């Protein structure tokens, strides 16, 4: 007897599998009432869809449960969300300071990443010659693959000194800017600005590639309609293409919001982690993810301390959900008139 080669065995297997699959699908098709098949499909898809919701609910419940002790205790209570002083040794668990830090860093990050990223996407999809575009897209996608700790190290060694030695001196010696309240110093470079900027750099690849895809899926016929009315290429890009691609660009915004609030390592390394509310871009700050990472290891000393850290995580989670929802509503309102993507 001749032994079948591996290739023959594999071929036989795949034939068997495909035959079996085909007979099943054919049998389903020949059912008296094909609607049943579709019902099966719907139930089959309903399960994964509800799983996602279930996981979110479970996480929220768990965070809620873990943060109950601090939220119900005398020294804590719901007021901690607004209080600015964090000193577990003196039973002060104000997590407002971290909320403020996170909001400022996220704000800076989005303020930089969205205009730059969407601008870059418009350049890539509307103005860039196609061979250059492929190269740029590849580089941008590589940016997304850089581990955040590497970004953090780079920011630590390059950006922090740059802010200390170049940016701040330039701002404070400029008579027009030196008076602006949120540009006050002094600074050692570790600042909300550094955190926001490194976050922005980390968000860029997502913003650029998701927006670029959305812009490129706008049909050519819309661009031609606009040009034929006498619009210039840039008017067409901004007023027709960007607008038609808004839902997709919005997806980029939502994705980056979530990432910006939740990012940990890089921000931790450059914001200075000082327990003060940042009133200036050059002030150090402390973001929510950082306090959890830094203190969870020894927070077991006081149960309330540990619980307060979970309360921070709860806020983080709720903030992400709210941001996503708000962004979705804004996008929905912006595109009610109908968009093609």
């Amino acid at each position, binding site marked *: 007897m001749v032994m079948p080669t591996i290739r023959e065995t594999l071929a036989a297997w795949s034939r068997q599998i495909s035959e079996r699959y085909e007979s099943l699908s054919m049998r389903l098709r020949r059912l008296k009432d094909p609607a049943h098949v579709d019902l099966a499909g719907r139930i089959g898809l309903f399960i994964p869809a509800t799983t996602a919701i279930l996981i979110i609910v479970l996480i929220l419940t768990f965070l809620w449960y873990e943060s109950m002790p601090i939220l119900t205790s005398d020294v804590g209570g719901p007021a901690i969300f607004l209080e600015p002083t964090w000193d577990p040794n003196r039973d002060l668990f104000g997590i407002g300071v971290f909320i403020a830090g996170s909001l400022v860093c996220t704000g800076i990050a989005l303020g930089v990443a969205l205009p730059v990223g969407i601008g870059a996407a418009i350049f890539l999809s509307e103005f860039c010659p196609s061979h250059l575009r492929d190269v740029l897209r590849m580089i941008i996608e590589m940016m997304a693959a850089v581990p955040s700790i590497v970004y953090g190290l780079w920011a630590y060694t390059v950006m922090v000194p740059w802010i200390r030695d170049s940016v701040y001196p330039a701002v404070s010696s400029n008579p027009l800017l030196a008076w602006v309240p949120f540009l006050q110093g002094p600074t050692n470079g570790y600042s909300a600005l550094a955190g926001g900027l490194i976050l922005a750099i980390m968000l860029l690849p997502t913003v650029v590639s998701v927006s670029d895809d959305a812009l490129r899926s706008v*049909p050519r016929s819309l661009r031609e*309609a*606009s*040009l*034929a*009315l*006498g619009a*210039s290429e840039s008017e067409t890009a901004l007023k027709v293409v960007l607008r038609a691609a808004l839902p997709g660009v919005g997806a980029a915004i939502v994705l980056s919001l979530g990432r910006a609030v939740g990012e940990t390592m890089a921000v931790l390394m450059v914001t200075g982690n000082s327990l003060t509310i940042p009133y200036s871009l050059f002030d150090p700050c402390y973001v929510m993810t950082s306090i959890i990472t830094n203190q969870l290891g020894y927070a077991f000393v006081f149960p309330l301390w540990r619980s307060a850290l979970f309360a921070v995580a709860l806020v983080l989670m709720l903030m992400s959900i709210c941001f996503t929802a708000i962004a979705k509503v804004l996008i929905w309102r912006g*595109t009610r008139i*109908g968009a093609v993507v």
Partner: protein
Amino acid sequence: MYEYRIEVKDLNTWFGEKHVLKNITCYFEDNSVTAIMGPSGCGKSTLLRSINRLNDLIPGFRLTGQIFFAGSNIYDPDRNVYELRKRIGMVFQRPNPFPMSIRENLTFGPRLHGIKDEDELERIVEDSLRKAALWDEVRDQLDSPAVHLSGGQQQRLCIARALSVDPPVLLMDEPVSALDPISAGKIEDLIVQLKKEYTIILVTHNVQQAFRVSDQAAFLYMGELVEFDKTKRIAVAPEDPRTEAFITGRIG
């Protein structure tokens, strides 16, 4: 003296190495419809899109010769393309309304060209819709999305949009080939109405349609202008055997 007469002189165009239009010379008169006929791929759209310089944006497109519009060559190096395109409107084969409201579709062009006054814009919206025979159907839903209209209504909206910047010339590239016969009929009637005010150049596959609506006709075959004359004459006695073959349906 034809103020807006368009004259094409020795036009040759290439896409990369491909020679698409060969030595085209013809003219388009005011307040008349000129039909451009020919089998698929013969260069009808290319000719049309050379007149508003829409081909300029296609990589590898090259053109020699001249096209005169109101007395000046539109391919002059210092010609303002945007101004030119404002004065030569275009309607495409597939309806392509912007994903905006009906009203915004019609104010888009005027706003681009600097009209800010709301009353003026309002007047333009109504005028263009009336000219496109769409006003009565959409007057109560100007703020609803244009993409919710039917295909035929969308195409009339696109005609209204082209008219909104008040161009003396209207290029139409097979404007009814994607529509049902009733919508197509409405748009044909519309074309006949519009020629009172506009110079219309109509690309069409459909010989009967060309005969129904046009005053002059051009027959393109593989990039060459085979026949160009009054429609009546061509319909009765085509000069070139290829035109006759196309009219009688033997090629196309």
